[in-house]
């Protein structure tokens, strides 16, 4: 079985950006961004993903990783 891990914290640290600023820039609440970072969401819309990548200047693969679990 495979699960998706969100590496948003790592990218935020690399870009030296706060969660609050990213949330405001992409137009979602800080609470939702926190849920996304912790992987407690059912999914992410392409639109949201595109905005995150635009603000953080990265690729989807930089913030999403597929991990095989036993």
């Amino acid at each position, binding site marked *: 079985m495979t699960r998706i891990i969100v590496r948003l914290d790592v990218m935020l640290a690399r870009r030296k950006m706060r969660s609050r600023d990213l949330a405001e820039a992409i137009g979602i609440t800080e609470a*939702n*961004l926190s*849920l996304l970072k912790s992987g407690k*969401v*059912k*999914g992410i*819309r392409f639109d*949201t993903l595109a905005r995150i990548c635009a603000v953080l200047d990265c690729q989807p693969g930089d913030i999403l990783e597929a991990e095989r679990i036993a």
Partner: protein
Amino acid sequence: MTSTRIATLSGWLYSGTTALYYGLPLGLIAALTPGIASPDWLLSRMTDLPQGTAMTPFKYAAVIGIVWLALLPMFGALSHMRGLFRLYRRGDILTDTCAHHILRTGQWLVTLAGTSLLIKPLQTVLMTYDNPPGQRALAIGIDSSMLGFLLAGGLLVAIGWVMREAALVAQENAGFV
């Protein structure tokens, strides 16, 4: 914009249904008050009874009781309508609780159509059961309000079921960012 107009309209409708919920019993009592002093007043309002039908205290109480029982579904419907408008007023629109209120309102309206149909037959049988043979009556009446309640109730039942599905979809969507 949509949420604002829903909240605004629901505020008004909540006030309206609340006024009706508490005002309807008072209005009914006021309408029936003349009969308390003179039970024959009620007899004069029931024009489809045979000549010579007598009014007794038991018949009077039973006829009034039938009216109250038949209107109970109306209070059930109003109660759920108030609950629905209370939720809409504060912005909870696509939830299972809202769907439940819509469904129950519809079911109560369908029930009201049924009880309304029973008022006239029950009252005429009750009023004439002690009349001589040949002067007993059973009256049945169907009017547009009964059909209206039946159709509106059926519509709300269907919409309630659909809203249950919509609430599930909304809940699923809420898990996406």
